[in-house]
């Protein structure tokens, strides 16, 4: 069974090839069903591999399957190989599991789109790339997936490419990610130089055995983190993710919430021994960047009016929490939160897609309200997702966020406090969203004219094929926390499962004040979450307090605009300067030399009227004559 691990990425690849060849013949909905089945098949294989690993002893839960030698030259030997271990299979399970749900949902969501089969073509290619990323045995296979998901993300963000904003957003995502990829490449070069290999086994072994110096380990870790900042939308490279909402909503759920954006967290966890032997300030930087991003994005989310933009900034913020965990040495908590976040954020995005679908492509929350009556299933599941992300026990998000904050406290109380403020804001803005969309007065009637519905416009509930995934994800968002409950070491299922991968890097907090008072912290977390919700209810439902939504926050602290202004202003000027210098100075010098020679020597005097032509002909004829002469001689000899 373990040797069948290659089937996990191969099935979506097969789906891609089949839809590429027969997509137009298959059409709607067969292309979608085929794509869903392929991802479902991957999920089935992942489950099989999971149980096979589970049946082994802890230390034997590691298996490498080598498909073929990929790039062998000199001392570089890179195989196209897959690694089955607790971390990779955890990733594969939730990528294929949530992936197949979202595929199913998309069959309903993309109904009637003229490029229906092409959508599933890209979607299967994406799942294939994502699985290469998580299952790769070495950095290069992961990088193949890493760039692959980036490329698919580009295709899917600009899926409706006739829209200028969608095309621009896709390009922005790709180029920003490439900045991060530069870091990943540097990390690979450093790792190869220091260890002679790119395989995770080799690099991590070098770190664990002390062969990797702290300087090199720090450099590798920080370079990988630059890559992670790009892919996982952290400061200062987060700018592409909010714009990525131009893509169809299933894409936002799958790529820009549940799977691809967590790749950075996965990568840092994968090389946790390297991070462990790096200088202490390296993980601290990661924790600071993470918690700053979390807070920064949360303040923006508070003021957004586009239903998807709120969720986008929320995703950036939650990813910040995961990096806070990575920086605090809480790898189990990072993966835990990654999985629970995948459940509830995919749920929230799909829910928002259902709302957008029901509202005839309206995304402005100011034109919604009171939708719970017309869209009961969507509302119910969305509310579960809201409770999960807001940190209300016993929903999944509560447990995972709490675990991160526990480790953060052990690292530094400052990180904990900032994290708690962010948690408060999270509960606040998510409550705001739920109230604006599902409660209060119905504001969509006023705008029905805009939709061309002429008075008879009425939001409607989505078809069953879209609601079924919502229900499943809602169920997972309720019970997801059981993976890792804080009560005793017996309920730390995820920790025990991931132990062989993370034991070297995981921080030990058992002796800290935070750990000994963990129930107190648990209580604080509940109070903070409820406070956030209560505040939001007072502001947006009871209208007792005026909403604080300053423009500077709505505009994302002008960060994105500053960058675009720089790129469009001085950046562009500099580029134009180079192009000007090339044609005027570099080429000008060449033409200048030509002129000087022409005027002084007369060598080129006739070059304008065809003498070069005859010269060229003479050279040609002469050479041909020489060659002929040679052949005659050669034959005679």
């Amino acid at each position, binding site marked *: 069974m373990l040797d069948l691990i290659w089937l996990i990425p191969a099935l979506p690849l097969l789906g891609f090839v089949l839809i590429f060849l027969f997509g137009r013949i298959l059409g709607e909905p067969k292309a979608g069903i085929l794509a869903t089945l392929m991802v479902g098949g991957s999920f089935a294989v992942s489950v099989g591999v999971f149980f096979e690993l589970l049946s082994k002893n802890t230390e034997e839960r590691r298996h490498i399957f080598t498909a073929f030698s990929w790039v062998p030259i000199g001392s*570089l030997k890179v195989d196209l190989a897959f690694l089955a271990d607790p971390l990779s299979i955890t990733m594969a399970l939730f990528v294929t599991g949530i992936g197949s749900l979202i595929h199913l949902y998309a069959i309903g969501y993309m109904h009637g789109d003229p490029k229906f089969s092409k959508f599933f073509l890209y979607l299967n290619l994406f799942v294939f790339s994502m699985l290469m990323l998580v299952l790769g045995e070495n950095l290069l296979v992961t990088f193949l997936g890493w760039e692959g998901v980036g490329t698919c993300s580009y295709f899917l963000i600009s899926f409706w*490419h006739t829209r200028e904003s969608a095309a621009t957003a896709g*390009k922005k995502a790709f180029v920003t990610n490439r900045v991060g990829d530069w870091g990943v490449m540097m990390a690979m070069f450093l790792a190869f130089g220091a260890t002679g290999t790119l395989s995770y086994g080799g690099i991590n072994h070098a770190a664990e055995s002390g062969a990797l110096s702290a300087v090199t380990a720090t450099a590798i870790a920080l370079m990988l983190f630059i890559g992670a900042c790009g892919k996982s939308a952290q400061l200062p490279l987060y700018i592409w993710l909010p714009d990525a909402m131009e893509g169809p909503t299933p894409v936002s759920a799958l790529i820009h919430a549940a799977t691809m954006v967590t790749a950075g967290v996965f990568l840092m966890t994968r090389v946790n021994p390297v991070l462990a032997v790096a200088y202490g300030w390296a993980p601290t930087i990661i924790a600071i960047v993470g918690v700053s991003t979390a807070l920064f994005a949360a303040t923006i989310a508070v003021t957004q009016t586009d239903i998807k933009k709120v969720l986008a900034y929320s995703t950036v913020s939650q990813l910040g929490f995961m990096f806070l965990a990575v920086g605090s040495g809480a790898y189990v908590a990072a993966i835990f939160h990654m999985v629970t976040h995948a459940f509830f954020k995919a749920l929230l995005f799909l829910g928002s897609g259902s709302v957008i679908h029901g509202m005839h492509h309206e995304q402005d929350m100011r034109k919604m309200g009171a939708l719970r009556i017309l869209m009961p299933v969507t509302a119910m599941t969305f509310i579960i997702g809201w409770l999960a992300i807001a940190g209300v026990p016993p929903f999944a998000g509560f447990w995972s966020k709490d675990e991160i904050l526990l480790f953060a406290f052990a690292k530094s109380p400052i990180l904990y406090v900032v994290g708690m403020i962010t948690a408060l804001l999270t509960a606040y803005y998510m409550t705001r969203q739920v109230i604006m969309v599902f409660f209060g007065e119905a504001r969509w009637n006023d705008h029905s004219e805009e939709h061309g519905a002429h008075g008879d416009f009425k939001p409607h509930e989505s078809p069953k094929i879209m609601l079924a995934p919502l229900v499943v994800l809602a169920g997972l968002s309720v019970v997801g926390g059981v993976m890792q409950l804080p009560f005793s070491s017996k309920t730390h299922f995820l920790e025990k499962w991931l132990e062989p991968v993370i034991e070297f890097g995981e921080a030990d907090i058992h002796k800290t004040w935070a750990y000994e008072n963990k129930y107190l912290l648990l209580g604080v977390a509940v109070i903070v979450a409820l406070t956030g919700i209560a505040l939001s209810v007072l502001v947006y439902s009871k209208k007792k307090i005026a909403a604080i939504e300053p423009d500077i926050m709505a505009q994302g602290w002008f960060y994105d605009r500053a960058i675009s202004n720089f790129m469009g202003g001085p950046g562009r000027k500099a580029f134009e300067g180079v192009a000007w210098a090339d044609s005027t100075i570099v080429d000008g010098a060449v033409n200048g030399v030509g002129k000087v020679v022409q005027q002084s020597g007369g060598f080129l005097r006739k070059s304008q009227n065809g003498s070069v032509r005859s010269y060229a002909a003479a050279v040609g004829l002469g050479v041909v004559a020489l060659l002929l002469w040679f052949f005659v001689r050669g034959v005679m000899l």
Partner: protein
Amino acid sequence: MISIFASETGATLPFPILTALILVPLVGSLLTLASSQRRPEITKLIALLSSVLTGALGLWMLASFDTGEASYQFASKHQWISSWGIGWHVGVDGISLFLVVLTGILFPLVIVGCDPHHDEKRYLAWILLLEAGVMGSFLSLDLFLFFLFFEIVLVPMYFLIGGWGYDQRIYAATKFFLYTMVGSAFMLVGIVTTALLAKKDLGHISFDLVEIAQGANFAASTGRWLFFAFAIAFAVKVPLFPLHTWLPDAHTQAPTGGSVILAGVLLKLGTYGLLRFGVYLFPEAALWSREIFLTLAVIGIIWGAVAATMQKDLKRLVAYSSVAHLGFIVLGTFAFTSEAVGGGVMQMINHGVSTGALFLLVGMIYERRHTRLISELKGLQKVAPIFAAAFMVVMLSSIGVPGLNGFVGEFLILIGTFNTARWWVVVAATGVILAALYLLWAYQRVFHGEPDEANSSFQELRLREGLVLLPFIGLIIFCGVYPKPMLDRIEPSVKLILERVEEKTGYLAPAPVLLEEEHGQEEEG
């Protein structure tokens, strides 16, 4: 060490296949010229058949090539001007192998895929003469013979640009011709001096590359002068910054077929020459000057990419992207590690395939719209999705997305250079970001958006065009997914050159620290 000079080993075939690779297109060229003006289809058939035959011979040679062998194979050597020690010495090794095969594949595709629109007979004759010249350049193991072919190449290219190019063709062709001629003048002096100086060590005069490499010992300063005489000619041909400005003009003004060949194989004469005649003949000088070349290469990568971003003409944009890509190859060549040099050799092929295909596609756009201006084009993906998809695959290869060929070469160059020239790589790798920027921005402006009136009737990819592009796309995917067969054949010859560098200079590039095999065994279980 032994194998360095035991040159005529390896695979052989019952007839001189390499000589045939040069002669078939040459004879084809003459036959084309001699064919009747009134039967253009026969002319075309002759041209096509001789190029297809050449390509088939190239593939046959590839199939018979002895993979593990480092030195020249299928070699044949005949005296020519014996009083001057000039001979017909041809041979192929891992460095020239794929360049020869690519030449063989590229020309028939150009003949089928690009329409000259007028005076087809002379056009085809020039194309075939060009093929003979390129083949000869890659196969020659005699300095004088190499120079002859290197010069032959200029002539048909000059007439192709001047006769079948666009508005500014005379200016571009003249610039191309004079620029390259000036470079070649240096090389001619270098070649003659090399032979004369080598006489002291060899006891007789010889232009034979193998003999000179084997027997001659140049004083350090002499070697440097000679190296630079060669290097200038090749640097112009590559083209290396700041000698690159003939390229955008030549590319933009050349007919599509000319551009495809120029990007596909002609530029590689420069990088190939730097490796074969520069580094191999004068290792000490190459090592001594490596920082100059590394720096110019890195400047070229960034400069070319930045200049490409701001181009208004799609063809000119692709031309500037070539400056950047060729910079990577030069970077790898002067890294002196087998990963980087081997990656550079592979990148010569990759760039030929992907940029060749890009020029074909840009040519197809021009055939339809009679403009290459990016601002005149819009929304083509909506009206021609298959055409857009083909463009996308080729573009992603050029950007260097893993899984496609462009990535493997670039990655090997960078990872191999990192150990010997770390800070150059740190800068060079940003070229990868810029590549995404200029190509995606161009793609967005040309293919995305709602097509306006002029672009809404843009014709979808035709069957013939699709069939011409298919081999390119096949190679792009195959070499990206499974580069091993190629690397296996390139590596021994690259190692041979590096061994020679070590032998002559004592320089050995710092290898990565190889850890104990322990973890390797652990993974087996």
